């Protein structure tokens, strides 16, 4: 049974030097791993909403760690306090490190003040995934939405983040949009900061 215990120090992992982040693995290796993640979660849930939630939770854990790692390595431990600052951090730095390129676009929602959208023509995680018709609008990009939520939450910008497919004229595969809806307090704080 897993209970509570203290961490044993063999070779203290915190003493190891931080890698520069240049090591790579093959895309197919990651794709296999991600497909196993999705397949395992499919066995644990009965409906699509729960499946998306579990993928998001998995992504959340990744996002938390990515934020800490990147803040230390890329930004010299400086904290973003402004909305646009954290959004451009996610859109450029996080995307560049995780997926090798900056996100395709960052837009502000027209209907609501608190909505922002990061779009990507083809999410890396969705590259080898095909969704059967009976799963409706299920999007494995929920994992990436979780990553973004993890980063934003722990940077002090709580938000609800979801992933959606947006069909594009002339393209066979739809584009994926990560929709970020910030909490009330974030907007109030942003207004106060002027």
């Amino acid at each position, binding site marked *: 049974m897993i209970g509570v215990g203290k961490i044993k120090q063999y070779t203290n992992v915190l003493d190891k030097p931080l890698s520069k982040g240049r090591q790579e693995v*093959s895309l197919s*290796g*990651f794709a296999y*791993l991600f497909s196993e993640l999705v397949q395992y979660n499919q066995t644990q849930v009965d409906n699509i909403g729960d499946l998306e939630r579990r993928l998001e939770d998995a992504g959340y854990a990744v996002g938390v760690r990515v934020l800490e790692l990147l803040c230390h390595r890329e930004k010299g431990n400086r904290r973003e306090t402004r909305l646009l600052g954290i959004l451009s951090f996610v859109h450029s730095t996080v995307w560049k490190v995780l997926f090798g390129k900056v996100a395709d676009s960052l837009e502000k929602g027209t209907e609501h003040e608190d909505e922002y959208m990061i779009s990507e023509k083809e999410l890396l995680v969705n590259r080898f995934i095909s969704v059967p018709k009976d799963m409706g609008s299920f999007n494995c990009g929920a994992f990436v939405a979780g990553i973004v939520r993890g980063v934003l939450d722990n940077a002090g910008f709580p938000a609800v983040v979801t992933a959606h497919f947006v069909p594009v004229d002339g393209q066979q595969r739809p584009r994926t949009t990560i929709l970020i809806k910030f909490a009330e307090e974030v907007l109030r704080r942003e207004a106060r900061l002027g």
Partner: protein
Amino acid sequence: MAPAVPRSGDAIFANVERVNAELFTLTYGAIVRQLLTDLEEVEEVNKQLDQMGYNIGIRLIDEFLAKSNVTRCVNFRETAEVIAKVGFKMFLGVTASVTNWDQEGTCCSLILEDNPLVDFVELPDTCQGLYYCNILSGVVRGALEMVSMKTEITWIRDMLRGDDAFELQVKLLKQVPEEYPYKDDE
């Protein structure tokens, strides 16, 4: 047509599309964490990781054979060398070394010094029975089973438990002859 020359692990790795190892590491960590929360028993998690690895291995072998152009391995020694030098390099970006051959040549150890799965990882006291990288043993087992070799894979050394490297013992149980799917007289 001239037979294709088997390509070295480095050459193949340079040609495949790659992603940041940290995304890979963190995703694997998320998987292990989910399993620990759901299953709660460390032994169950080990088994599930092995099963997931097996599922990956049976698909991975196709890609491996397609991209690496290796010729049929003559004996188990060659198989182990190919796995260590080409297979691991192609997918994980690191090479392993093969040692500890027994007399019949059916049992060996793959040693991994560098393992992208375990960056940033420390095992807490409560999970000491966990083989964190058990997915690798499943992958090797699944891949070899698809090329007619039944193997048994165990962890000998594990860096997360205080050893200095990862050592995977691969034991060939038997070679299963390929079954001809059609009856001859039909």
